[in-house]
């Protein structure tokens, strides 16, 4: 297939415009029709070259979608039969419960997983069938799938960053770390930067620069945190660490000695 395209290109090279001077009508028409023919020919050949890949893409997609539907149906039946939902809903804490039932999610994940698989296989089949060098708009197709993935990554990243930041903040406060806010901000930006890097990487934008920049930024954040802990709030940290140690010491004392127990605090 490649060979044929090559030869077509060679032909085009050979039939470059006639030398100036020969301006007879017939030849102009001839040239024009030849040029048209050639371009038509070229596009057609290209289409022909792409078509199997495209076909393969669609076939793969269709097959996997079907398989996915089948799988999801099967799983739903199976899970319904084993009463998966009622079992699961009790175990997960209620504030984590998703809006749809767990078996629904599983079957949906299965279905979309299959579709995605089909998409990937189709794209790769398409890719192999399609000359990578050709800069046709159709090549945006795989790129689009990347874009969707990137958006999903971004959303997930932001959600995780928010949640983690809050978790870290609260637990750091409760651990009485003076730099709790910095820590939580650091974690948040760490996750965000990581997400951004992953997204860019996923989009294949920037290539090495992204990795490099991420490395620098990440390192910078870690360094900043380290400095903050190490220098800026050194004695705060040491104090809080000390008090923690003391506190732990107190705690271990409690059961041993009744006299000290009355002097310390027991929350429960």
């Amino acid at each position: 297939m490649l060979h044929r395209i090559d030869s077509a290109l060679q032909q085009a090279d050979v039939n470059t415009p006639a030398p100036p001077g020969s301006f007879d009508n017939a030849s102009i028409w001839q040239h024009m029709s030849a040029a048209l023919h050639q371009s038509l020919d070229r596009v057609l050949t290209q289409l022909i070259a792409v078509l199997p890949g495209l076909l393969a893409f669609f076939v793969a997609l269709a097959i996997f979608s079907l398989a996915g539907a089948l799988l999801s149906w099967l799983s739903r039946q199976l899970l319904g039969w084993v009463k998966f939902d009622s079992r699961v809903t009790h175990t997960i804490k209620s504030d984590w419960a998703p809006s749809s039932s767990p078996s629904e999610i599983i079957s949906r994940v299965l279905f979309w997983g299959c579709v995605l698989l089909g998409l990937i296989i189709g794209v790769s089949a398409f890719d192999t069938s399609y000359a990578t060098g050709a800069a046709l708009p159709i090549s945006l197709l795989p790129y689009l799938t990347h874009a969707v993935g990137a958006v999903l990554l971004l959303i997930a990243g932001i959600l995780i960053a928010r949640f983690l930041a809050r978790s870290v903040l609260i637990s750091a406060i409760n651990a009485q770390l003076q730099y709790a806010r910095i820590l939580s901000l650091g974690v948040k930006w760490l996750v965000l930067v990581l997400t951004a890097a992953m997204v860019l990487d996923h989009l294949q934008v920037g290539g090495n620069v992204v990795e490099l920049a991420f490395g620098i930024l990440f390192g910078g954040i870690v360094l900043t945190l380290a400095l903050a802990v190490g220098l800026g709030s050194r004695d705060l940290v040491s104090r809080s660490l000390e008090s923690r140690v003391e506190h732990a010491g107190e705690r271990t004392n409690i059961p041993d000695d009744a006299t000290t127990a009355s002097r310390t605090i027991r929350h429960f």
Partner: protein
Amino acid sequence: MKKIASTTDPLWYKDAVIYELHIRAFADSNNDGIGDFQGLLTRLDYLKELGVTCIWILPFFPSPLRDDGYDIANYTDVNPSYGTLSDFKAFLDAAHQRGMQVMIELVINHTSDQHPWFKAAKLAAPGSPEREMYVWSDTDQKYKDARIIFTDTEKSNWTWDETAKAYYWHRFFSHQPDLNYDNPQVMEEVLTAMRFWLDMGVDALRMDAIPYLCERDGTTCENLPETHVVIKKLRAVIDAEYANRLILAEANQWPADVRPYFGDGDECHMAFHFPLMPRIYMALRQEDRLPISDIMAQTPPIPDNCQWGLFLRNHDELTLEMVTDDERDYMYFAYSADPRMRVNVGIRRRLAPLVDNNRRRIELLNSLLLSFPGTPILYYGDEIGMGDNIYLGDRNGVRTPMQWTSDRNAGFSKCDPARLYFPVVMDPIYGYQVVNVEAQLSDQSSLLHWTRNMIALRKLFKVFGRGTLTFLNPTNRKVLAYLRNLDLDDGFRETVLCVANLSRFAQPVSLDLSEYAGYGPVEMLGYVPFPAITQEPYSITLAPYSFLWLELQAVTPSAEELPLDLNIETSASLASEGFSAPAGFAGGWAEFFASAGAAMLEPALRDWLPKKRWFGAKTRTIESVRVRNWTELPMGPKSDGFAENGTNKSAAIPPALVFFDVSYFEGKPDVYQMPLAISTGADLDEITVNHPESIVAKLTTASGLAVLHDALVRADCRDELLKLIVSNATLPVLEIGTATQIAAATPKTPAIGASEMPAEIIPAVSPAPLSAQPGEAAAPPRTATPVKESSDAQRLQSRESPFAGDAPHEGNQFAARASSAFPLRSAQLSSRVGSAEQSNTSVLYGKQLFLKIYRRLQPEENPDVEIGRFLTEVAHYPAIPPFLGEISISSGDGVKTTLAILQGMVQNEGDGWEWFLNELSKGLSSVSEKPAPELSPVPTWLSEHKPIPKSLEPVRATLEAAALLGRRTAELHLALAKGTDLPSFAPEPLLKEDLARDVERIEAQIKSVFDALKARLPKLDDAVCDRAALLLSRRPELIQRVRQMATAKTSGQRIRIHGDYHLGQTLRVTGLDAGKDASSVGQSDFMLIDFEGEPARPIEERRRKQSPLKDVVGMMRSFSYAAFASIDRAVTARGEGLAADPNALADWARLWQHTATAEFLSSYRDVMAVNPVLLPPPAEAQILLDGYLLEKALYEVLYELNNRPAWVHIPINSILTL
């Protein structure tokens, strides 16, 4: 496989909140423009959050959809455009998992003409089982009496079928042939379909068009007995094979006609209340509750396991079949300006457009829906106030897609808008850009949030779903008020009062809630306590279209009960200071008042005082209450209440007598006294349970909850007061700012001249034997050391200006003193607070002692104390309860204020007033049959004593008693005139100036009384009005008569008198030892009590010396009252029999009154003859008597006008007979 029910409560539908939705319209998951089960699945959490407990889905079966799915072509499948059977199952499971039940439609009256049964029937031979699935006829004249329901589209209930060559019967559209329930096979098929769904786990079935199942010629073909047989069969199958399922009947009939569909609880569980819906709208538009209360009155009771289904709007038109023609026209005019809004016999509009999108009206209607007896059914979209599209045909205007977001197609579907089954509403008011779930979720005050909160609130109270309904009928008909009541299994009673203002303006209403007197209403939405209910009408003001849900809580002494006080406390400290010192009471009252105590107590008292009977100025509004000073009672460490927790710090705060100024917005301020105590622990519980009315405020102290309350409810406080008197204690009076510590518990030596020894060593009074009669004990004060009268007098005198020299710098001094007549010393007597709370409070110690504690204090010695002491200690007058002690405060400048008086208790048969009334009413009823007596002349001072007429023989006892009273009165006056060497008691001549002053006063009174009478004239009864007018015309005559008084030449003497003398101030006693009078022991007698004078007058005036004739007048007036009051009593005692001739009775009463007065006067005159200078000569006496009588009667007119207009005729008549 048969699934078990999703709920365990067989009556689950009673507490349900049903949400009606159409699959097609709710949510579209596959973007084909038509909603489906998968879409609904994604929205289940929305419904759960909304609080819905049951989802009712409109028909989703395969159908040509010519009647929105009610034309079913296959009973046991799902319409492909809505999903598959497994989608439905998934939805069903998901709903159950969220605790929601599912109701589906069972349309068994008819099928689609596309149903295989009908197709087969058309082809089958007439009479064959296939053919007989439907109702066929060769003529369209059968069942002529059946009405046509869809009048807009159908001309007849019969339609000709070409294939079958026959007419088929259809109650609805012609494409919906009716099934033939006379064919048993139909029943079988229907049961199969029903089992199909119930096996799957469906919880409820709505039976469509249930009255029309069977047809019989010559009937309207509605509600036939045969139909009920069919329903009973269905129900029997359900009861036998399934548990906890529900049938809801759609029977668009009058309530009485719907009632049979409940059977004896063996047909349908629920039925829609169709007629209510249009009437709610009508009531709203007419601003009159009548349509609602009327239809509810027509609603029959239903079996216990049955329930009404209530709705404001549904997928059909607002049907007007169940209203009268007039009402229908009214509704058309009121709610469907555009004829396009009408369809069939109804109005096809949604809730919000029906009420002009007025949020308040929507809320009002929903509040009725949620609080009426029955299960509320919400129509999808109404929770966000969706609009409709009247340009869609049939009833489709209210079936447009649910509006979820402001995105394309309102978030209902992502398809091409043109593909939607109906366009979404897009107008500028109700369009999805404005009205959608997403927007309302983010708006905390949206209708959606409101609805959600209301549903949650309703679900907290079972009474809404299960309770009884009682309408209150306030006079303002724009207000609908009703009570819901439910006794729960655990003995708890839920009572909710709902009040709704149907008017677009604010409305006042007063509700008769006397049945719930004492209950405390709590507004349910915000848990706001409202003023407690009393016997009086309960007044509420309602904002336009507002409604109130009030939970009536039996007043339990709980923490919730007193939120008002507490809110003040907590919110104030939250807002301002925030740091309540947990040990605020450690320093006693001084610190308590100095810190926030006074600031807390004073407003609390302001709210508390007007509720007390003894509080005099009820008509005035208190401006402020300010603590003036107080005296702490020295409570011993071992007092009952604190025996267990002696370490308790609040015990360090002893009870105190607190004196405070009460100032009003108008008029002079008063000084009140109030014994206050702070109780915690066991005392607190005792008090909150038994004496909640005594609690002034609740406090949060370091030792937990404490109450600040009237100390008299605590026994130890009462005992302490007695102890103080017995030990003649003197205590300092403390003021804010003086951080004086509590005086030592040992009382100081009273500064009484005679006794200089400490009270501890020599008792101030010697104990008298317990067996001694109170009167006896009074005679010789001390057996050991007899005291001469002069020394007594000296003591009395020294007390008139008591502590001027003793404590010049301390200012006020609190002193308790026992009388020389005090019989016993601190014997442990059980004490209680007297039940008849008047303007004072009395404490009874055992059966011997009676302590009257004055509430309002006046800066003079109380005449009761003064006269009581004089009569007991100086004059030794026996016919009064002995004076035994007093508590008073004397200021530095010698003014003495009486706080309390201790008297001996007298065994009595009630007061003289009651006794006379009883005797008289008995006598009157016995004479009532006799002809009216001839009238005796009005007795005068001059009239001779005549024997008692025979006709009055039945009431001879009372007449003798009147004579006895005359004697006792005269003796009293003689005794009072004895104190010749006491300036405050010594008789003085009654001078011309005194009389002139009297005349002036009475003239002024005539003027004011006549003014008042004129003003009230229109409000009086006709009969009284007549007499009053006559009285008004006599004005010059009366003035003339009064002026005669000043002309009297000699007018006798002025002495201290009783001052407020009437029968109520006497006690009927047996066995009074009348001492010197030598009346035989054991005979009935009278004791005279309460020498306080008229409480409304200032003390100075009450202490003034006056003519003894004023007391005589008082008693004469009292006889007049007794005569007429006894008529009332006799009438009520005898019932209607007596009511025949009240005039005759009045004659009898008048005869008695005259005779009794004559008896009284003659014996009074006889005894008074001992001291002739006291009274003027008879002629002058008569003039004075008339003048005073007039004054007294005028006073009574004024009093009755203000208090008891029904009694005003008594004094008016008396004045007229003068």
